[in-house]
Every structure is written in structure tokens, then in C-alpha cells.
């Protein structure tokens, strides 16, 4: 039995690594369709990274070892987190080891490393990007934690597996607090992954870019790894959202059929979320950087309201 | 049936005034309607004296000793003020500050205001009481801004917003009360009827009722002008036409306090310990102190007496907060005397302001020389309001103070301090207004109209000298209802 479980853990890790570029490809595809452009292939991100892996790495003369280690560390951390979030099965050996708060910690660790590396070479853009990233992060993280607390207090646990299981036991139920923290989570997701109201992943405009400014100095396989890690982060956030707010479809083990069904469910949910996000990005415009505190403040507020509502409405 | 009659007279009068209020006969119609209202009210009072309680429409309307006495007072002051506003408006028209539409608005709203007050007093339904209180604000707010000056608009806006917010708190309190009551009385109409509530008051949930009372006290307290919710009061009094200042001070504040008293009785029934009383006493003492302090700094003559109203409302709130038969009786007596005296003062002040064409007290001097009748009017009114012995205010203040000395000695010194400061301020100010050489008079034309003033002060004086047994009996009955 335990061997099986570890096998599933391994499968999920590999699946996440493969699904992440496909998810990015799918979102780009949807956005292109909504904007009446000709979409590129779903495999485009993967192809691009493979190409990058074959290219030579150019390093700045002043780059310290931190700069070189960062892509690997980043990729490692995010691959680990991708293994921690229940995607198909509620219970995995590793997800029992780490709870959702530690997960948030891992995500912020990755961010800190990247910001340090961006400042390492000492170029203007790197520092600028790092500073902006930290501005976003220091507002987004409390909001994320509040979202987590709201769900955790609802399910009386901080373990993702247990939270998912409790919600599954309960069946479909309208929770105002969950609705609030869901919206807050969406806002945080957009900010943390550098999506449109906060950052635009497609431009390299110095006035606005955040994430792209940080990785401007990277090339070759380093760049590929960072981008891959970034895609993994998106996947992690998506599946985190599913576990917290819509775990229906997750399997608790059992027969192979059930697991296969759950896998298909997971893919469908990913597809739907991808479409929804693409719509959201198409209809909304990027905000000024100075509005970001207000935007994330709103997310924080919603999450706090969710906790308060849970307190008041009880059940 | 008689309640219907009393309520329908001002409604019909208001409608007529809304139609033809700008015509020369309108002020006389105003007086006539008010006189008819007083007659209907007097008839009701007799009925209440005979039967104790008068009810109609499934007890939706109900008059007992407490509300009947206030109905009488309201109708009386309504009549005298209507009489006074006749000469006041004539003068304003000559000065060009009034025109046809404004006259129509004034007359129509005056009757509508009287209707809302009488409705608030005669209804048994706490929800309707709220509706009537809110309607009282709505009817007077356009009167406060009648002159369309920047200052009057500002005053009216403040009045509207502050009282609107306050009254909203009162609605929340009413909802909470209903929430507590419907468990005992069931849903539907009867759960807001005061006479039913009082019977089950000991079964009401204390937590909810006390919370409801806090909201009601804050809400209606805004209208009473309790500190720190009083900011609208001096402005509204100063900027509106003087007859409106007289009815605001003399009637509206009373009715708002009446609303608090009705709920206080329920709270006292529901709670084993005293909760409403100390709260009201605290508000009362603070209001007195702040108002007395503010009195000293005023230059506008109408604001000056408006602060005096806040002070007296504070004293009343304190007296009713103390509870007990004597204090309640003294409070009711003081309520009567204050509204008569204060409106009489405003009658005099309005004419002074018309003659001197200013509200600034530093520019008014020697009223006694310039116009002896008006000077004596203001002087005697001021003496009455600070509580000089032959006038009734002395009796009621004395009763309140002695009761406080016996039951709540801590409160005596701040009250005496506030009364002393107010005494010094009013006395000093009125002295400089009335005595000395006449200066700054701009308009000497008409004879002052002192008839309404005269009747008010005569009653105040008589009540100070001799309280007839039947009246004492009526007050005692009303005071019983408060305990």
C-alpha cells in the first residue's frame, strides 16, 4: 500500500511538471482567441524552453554564485510545492508532512531568492523589478494567509488533505465566507503570478514590468528553468484554489477507475479556470503601480471579512 | 373617534394652507385651525380625565395621562405660536424676506408639523411613533432653510443629516425592541403596541432590550439635543423663522423626550437593575454642563437661548433618569414650564431681532428704553427661565434638586454649577440687552404683539404660585405612568 502511495506521489510530481507548460500554453491560446489573434500551439512554451535549454548561458561578470544557483533553487522549491498540493488524490504522503501555511512560506521563500538574485548583478532593471515584486508581495502575502485562515477555520484544520476531505464530506454548501475568501484568493492569484491588473507578462515595458524586469539578466537554461518554475507556480495556485474552494472531483484513493476519473476532472477544472482567467485578463486593463496597494488591500479586506463572517454566521 | 378628529384638523388645515397659504387670510386660518385643534385636544383631555385612557383603532391610538397632558401643551403652544407668527410674518413680508410661495410653504408645513407632533403623542405603536418623529424633521427642515441664506441652508442641512442619522439609530432600536417583543406577543401588529409591551415587559430579553434602549436614547436623544448630539440644535434655532424656533424648543424637544420616556419604562420593566436611569442621568448632567459653558460664549441671541434649551433638556433628562414619583412629577412640571417660558422668550426675541435687524447681542442695547413692553417681556421671560422664585420654574427646579440631594448627591454639585453658570450668563446678557441707552434700533413702526407672550407667562406665574389640586392630580397620574 505504502509503495503505491509513494508511486502516486511521484506520478503527481511528473504530471505537474508536464501540465504546467501546457497550462501556460492553454491560457495563451485562450487569450489569443478572445483577442482575435491567431493562437500559437499548446506546446509552444515547452518548445521554447527546450530551445532555451540548448542555448548557451551568458552570465554577467559580476554575478555571484547566488545568481547561478537561483534558477535551480527556484525550480526545486516549486517542484516540491507542486508535489505537496493535492491535485488528484486527497491524501499523499508529502502533503501530510507540510501544511498550507508552510506552503505559503515555501512560495515566499522562492520569491525572496528570486528578488535577491535580481539585485545581485546590480543592474537598474533588476533592482527595480525586485523592489516592485517585494511591494506586491508584502501586500499579497497577508491577504493569502488570511484566505488560508478563513478556509482553515471553516474546516478546522490547516492540512490541505484534511481540508479537502472535510469539504468533500460536507457536500455542496453555500458559504458566504468562502465566497469572499474565494474572490480574495483570485485577486491574490493574479497579483502573485504577475497577471494583468498588476503586471503584464507579455510586455517588457520598463514603466510597468515587475516579473520580467527581475529575470531580464537570465538566459539559456537558467531562463528556461525560471519560466518553468513560474508556470509551476501558476499550477500550484490553481490547484490550491481548487482544494480550498472547490475540491469536488478529488479522489480519496480507491479503485483505479476512480483515480482516472478524478484525473480527468482535474484537467477539466484546469481548462475551465484557464478560460476564466483568460477572459478576466482580456476584459480588464492593467492598473497603475500605485493602485496596487489599494487592489491588494481590497483582497486583504475581503479575506478578513470572510473570517469575520465565518465567526458571526458560524455553522 | 375624538383622536381622529384632533388629528384630522391639522391635516385638513395643512392641505388648505398648501392650496391657499399665500393669501392674506391664511394667517387667520392658521390661528383658526390651531384653535380648533386646541378645542379638540381639550375635549380629549376631558375624556381622558373621565375614563383614564382613550383608545381607538385596535389600540393603535391611545391617550393616557402622560400623553394627554403633552397633547394639551402642544395644542396650546401651537395656538399661541400661530397667533404670534401672524404679526411676525406680516413684518417679514414688509421687509421683503417672505413672498407668496414661502408663505404657503410656511403655513402648510406649520400645520403638518403640528400633525406629526400630535400623531407622535397619540399613537400607541412605537413604530408609528418613529414615523411621526421622522416626519416632524421632514416638515421643519424646509422651514429652517426658509430664508435661503447660506447660513440657513447650512443649518437646515446639518439638521436634516444629523437628525436623519440619529433617527435611523432610533429605528434600529425600535427594530430590536420588536425583535424582543415578538417572541412574547407574536408577530404582527400588537408587538409594537406600547400598552401591550408594558404588560409583558418583565418577560422581555434584558440584553436585547438594553441594547435597544441605547440605540433609542442616541436616536431620539439627537432630537432632544443631548450633548454630544446637539450640534444641529443651535443652528436650526438661530437660522429659521422665530416662530419655528419657538415650536422647536417648546414642542419638538418635549416630544422627542417623551419618546425616550416611553421606552425607558419598558426597559425598567425588563431589567432587574437600573440601566436606563443612570444612562439618562449621565447624558443629562453632561448636557447641562456643556450647554451652560457654551451659553457664555454666544453672541447670536437665538443661539443663546437655544443653548439654554439644551441645558433645560439636560435637566429634564436627568430628572426623568432619577425616576421616582417626585422627580418624575417635577420633571413633567418643568417640561410644561420650560416649553411655555422658552417659547415666550422666543416670541420676544423674534420681535427684538426684527426691530434691531440683527441677531448680534453686542449690537442690541436698551430695549427697555426703545420699547418698554418688549424690554419687560424679555426681562421677565429671562427671570422666569433662570428660576426666579415667583415663577414656576423655581418650584420644579427646587423639587428636582432636593430629590437629587436625597438620592443622587453626586449629581447635585455639577447641576448647581451648571445652573449657576447659566444664571450668570443669561442674567448678565439680558441686563446688557435691556438696560442702558437705546442703540441700534432700525425699525420702530409697529406695536409689539405681546398677547401670546402674556398668556404663557401668566400660566408660568400661576403655576409657580398655586398648583390647583386637579392639575396636581393629573401630573401625579402621569408621573405614575413613568414608574
Amino acid at each position: 500500500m505504502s509503495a503505491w502511495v509513494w508511486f502516486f506521489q511521484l506520478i503527481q510530481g511528473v504530471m505537474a511538471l508536464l501540465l504546467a507548460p501546457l497550462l501556460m500554453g492553454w491560457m495563451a491560446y485562450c487569450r489569443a482567441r478572445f483577442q482575435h489573434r491567431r493562437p500559437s500551439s499548446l506546446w509552444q512554451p515547452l518548445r521554447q524552453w527546450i530551445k532555451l535549454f540548448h542555448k548557451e548561458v551568458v552570465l554577467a561578470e559580476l554575478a555571484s554564485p547566488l545568481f547561478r544557483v537561483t534558477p535551480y533553487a527556484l525550480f526545486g522549491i516549486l517542484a516540491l510545492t507542486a508535489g505537496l498540493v493535492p491535485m488528484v488524490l486527497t491524501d499523499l504522503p508529502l502533503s501530510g508532512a507540510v501544511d498550507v501555511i508552510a506552503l505559503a512560506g515555501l512560495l515566499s521563500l522562492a520569491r525572496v531568492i528570486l528578488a535577491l538574485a535580481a539585485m545581485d548583478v546590480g543592474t537598474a532593471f533588476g533592482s527595480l523589478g525586485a523592489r516592485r515584486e517585494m511591494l506586491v508581495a508584502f501586500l499579497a502575502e497577508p491577504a493569502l494567509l488570511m484566505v488560508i485562515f478563513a478556509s482553515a477555520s471553516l474546516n478546522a484544520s490547516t492540512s490541505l488533505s484534511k481540508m479537502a476531505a472535510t469539504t468533500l464530506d460536507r457536500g455542496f454548501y453555500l458559504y458566504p465566507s468562502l465566497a469572499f475568501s474565494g474572490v480574495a484568493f483570485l485577486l491574490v492569484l493574479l497579483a502573485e503570478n504577475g497577471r494583468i491588473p498588476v503586471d503584464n507578462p507579455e510586455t517588457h515595458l520598463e514603466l510597468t514590468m515587475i516579473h520580467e524586469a527581475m529575470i531580464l539578466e537570465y538566459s539559456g537554461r537558467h531562463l528556461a528553468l525560471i519560466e518553468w518554475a513560474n508556470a509551476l507556480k501558476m499550477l500550484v495556485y490553481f490547484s490550491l484554489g481548487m482544494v480550498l474552494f472547490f475540491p469536488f472531483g478529488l479522489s480519496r484513493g480507491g479503485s483505479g477507475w476512480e483515480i482516472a476519473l478524478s484525473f480527468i476532472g482535474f484537467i477539466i477544472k484546469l481548462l475551465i479556470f484557464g478560460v476564466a482567467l483568460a477572459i478576466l485578463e482580456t476584459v480588464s486593463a492593467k492598473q497603475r503601480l500605485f493602485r496596487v496597494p489599494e487592489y491588494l488591500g481590497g483582497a486583504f479586506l475581503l479575506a478578513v471579512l470572510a473570517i469575520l463572517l465565518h465567526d458571526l454566521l458560524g455553522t | 373617534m375624538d383622536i381622529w378628529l384632533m388629528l384630522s384638523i391639522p391635516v385638513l388645515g395643512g392641505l388648505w394652507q398648501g392650496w391657499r397659504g399665500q393669501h392674506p387670510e391664511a394667517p387667520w386660518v392658521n390661528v383658526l385651525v390651531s384653535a380648533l385643534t386646541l378645542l379638540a385636544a381639550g375635549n380629549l383631555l376631558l375624556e381622558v380625565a373621565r375614563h383614564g385612557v382613550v383608545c381607538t383603532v385596535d389600540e393603535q391610538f391611545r391617550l393616557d395621562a402622560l400623553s394627554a397632558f403633552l397633547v394639551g401643551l402642544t395644542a396650546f403652544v401651537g395656538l399661541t405660536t400661530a397667533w404670534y407668527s401672524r404679526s411676525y410674518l406680516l413684518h417679514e413680508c414688509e421687509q421683503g424676506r417672505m413672498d407668496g410661495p414661502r408663505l404657503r410653504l410656511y403655513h402648510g408645513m406649520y400645520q403638518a408639523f403640528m400633525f406629526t407632533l400630535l400623531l407622535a403623542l397619540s399613537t400607541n405603536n412605537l413604530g408609528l411613533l418613529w414615523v411621526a418623529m421622522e416626519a416632524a424633521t421632514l416638515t421643519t427642515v424646509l422651514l429652517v432653510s426658509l430664508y435661503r441664506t447660506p447660513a440657513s441652508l447650512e443649518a437646515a442641512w446639518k439638521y436634516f443629516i444629523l437628525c436623519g442619522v440619529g433617527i435611523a439609530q432610533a429605528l434600529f432600536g425600535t427594530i430590536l425592541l420588536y425583535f424582543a417583543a415578538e417572541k412574547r406577543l407574536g408577530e404582527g401588529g400588537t408587538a409594537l403596541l406600547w400598552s401591550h409591551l408594558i404588560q409583558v415587559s418583565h418577560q422581555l430579553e434584558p440584553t436585547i432590550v438594553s441594547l435597544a434602549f441605547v440605540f433609542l436614547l442616541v436616536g431620539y436623544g439627537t432630537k432632544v439635543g443631548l450633548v454630544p448630539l446637539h450640534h444641529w440644535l443651535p443652528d436650526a434655532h438661530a437660522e429659521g423663522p422665530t416662530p419655528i424656533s419657538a415650536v422647536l424648543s417648546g414642542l419638538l424637544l418635549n416630544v422627542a423626550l417623551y419618546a425616550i420616556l416611553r421606552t425607558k419604562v419598558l426597559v425598567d420593566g425588563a431589567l432587574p437593575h437600573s440601566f436606563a436611569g443612570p444612562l439618562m442621568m449621565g447624558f443629562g448632567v453632561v448636557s447641562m454642563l456643556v450647554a451652560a459653558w457654551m451659553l457664555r460664549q454666544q453672541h447670536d441671541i437665538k443661539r443663546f437661548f437655544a443653548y439654554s434649551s439644551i441645558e433645560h433638556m439636560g435637566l429634564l433628562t436627568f430628572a426623568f433618569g432619577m425616576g421616582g414619583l417626585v422627580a418624575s412629577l417635577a420633571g413633567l412640571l418643568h417640561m410644561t414650564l420650560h416649553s411655555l417660558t422658552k417659547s415666550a422668550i422666543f416670541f420676544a426675541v423674534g420681535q427684538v431681532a426684527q426691530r434691531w435687524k440683527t441677531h448680534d447681542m453686542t449690537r442690541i442695547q436698551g430695549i427697555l428704553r426703545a420699547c418698554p413692553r418688549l424690554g419687560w417681556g424679555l426681562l421677565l421671560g429671562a427671570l422666569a427661565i433662570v428660576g426666579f422664585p415667583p415663577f414656576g420654574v423655581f418650584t420644579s427646579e427646587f423639587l428636582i434638586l432636593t430629590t437629587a440631594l436625597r438620592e443622587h448627591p453626586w449629581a447635585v454639585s455639577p447641576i448647581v454649577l451648571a445652573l449657576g453658570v447659566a444664571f450668570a450668563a443669561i442674567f448678565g446678557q439680558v441686563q446688557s440687552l435691556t438696560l442702558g441707552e437705546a442703540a441700534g434700533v432700525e425699525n420702530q413702526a409697529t406695536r409689539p404683539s405681546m398677547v401670546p407672550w402674556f398668556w404663557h407667562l401668566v400660566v408660568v406665574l400661576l403655576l409657580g404660585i398655586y398648583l390647583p389640586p386637579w392639575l396636581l392630580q393629573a401630573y401625579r397620574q402621569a408621573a405614575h405612568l413613568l414608574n
Partner: protein
Amino acid sequence: MPHWNPVPFAQQLLDLFAALLLLIVFAMLSQRRILTLIHLFALQGMILALSIADSAWLTHQPHLYYSAALTLGLKGVILPGLLRRLIGRLGVVWDVETLINIPTTMLLGIVLVIFAFNLALPIAHFSHTILRNTLGIALASVLLSFMMMITRNKAVPQVIGFLAMENGLFFAATSATYGMPMVVELGVALDVLVGMFIFGIFFFQIRDTFDSLDTRKMDHLGRD
């Protein structure tokens, strides 16, 4: 396992409506554009009407349906329409200015919500109606609208705050109790309507006198 007792779907829906009402008040607090403010107010009226209809269905109180229809007509359609026309006739195009910046307002708002919820908790325990906990939300919306009136310095947003407060009170009346008696509800509705007309008259008077609807210009009284 957390304490878990299922409640009917209509009740869940009511809780959701209550939460949405609270959310709308927050959105109003953070809103800078006056027209959006009016739209939010209309939305609030509609959700209020839905919640009343829902509690009518939940408690089998037919008279609440009338109440819901009244609310929908008055607060969802008529009052916002009046406000919009008023804005058009006044030619008001400016954005709303606030006295305190918006994030601070939000934080204060959270504090108010905590206060209101704590105040309402003891009451919720006593309640036997199934519509129990929403009283705290109603109280919170009342306080937040109150704060909106304080922090805005233009006349129109102040009035919207006032009307939003009335909505909060109405929600309290229908959610905590089974709705007030019909006479009272009609009276309250009449008062609101008349008040609205007087507000309209006021807008014009204030603009004509002060050349602006900025209530900061009206602070001369009491300075003598």
C-alpha cells in the same frame, strides 16, 4: 471534525445575500465615481429585495412578499433613477472626494465590522428565529454607511450614504424579525420617499447658494 449542522438552502442563500450586502457597502466606501456609487446603491436595493423575498419564502410570511416588491420598486428602481436624473440635471460630473484616504477608510471599516459583530453576538444567542445571525451584518452595514456619510464631503454621496443606512436598517427589520408590521413599513417607506424629495430640493438650493455641492463650504455656523 468541526461542529456541523446543515441548514436549508434558502437559509444559506440568505446568509449569502447578507454577506453581499456587506460587500456592497464596502464597495461603496471605496468607490470614487459617483455614477458607480448610484449603481451600487441600486444593486444593494435589489439584493435587499431578493433577501426579503427569500426570508418570506423561508418563513412563509406572505406579507414579506409585498415588502420585497415595495423595496424592489422604491430602492432598486425609483430612488436610484431619481438620483441619476438629479445628477444629470445638476450637471455633476466630478469624482467623489474623500476626507480620509481609501485604505484607511477600509481599515476603519473592518474595525467597525468587528465592533458590530461583537455587539450582535449576544443577541444572536437569544434568537429563536432561523434568521438569526444576519443582525450583526445589518448593524455593520448601518455603521459603515454612517461612516461613509462622515468621510464624504459632497452632498450627493452623503445622501447615498444616508439611503444605504436606511437599507441596512430595513435589512435588520426583515432579517432579525419577520418584518415590521405593514403600517410601520409603509410609514418608513413614505418617510424615505419624502426625505428624498427634500434632499432633491436641497441639492438645488445648496448649489444655487454656494455654487457647489461641497458641504465643506458649509461650516461657518457656530464660529462666532
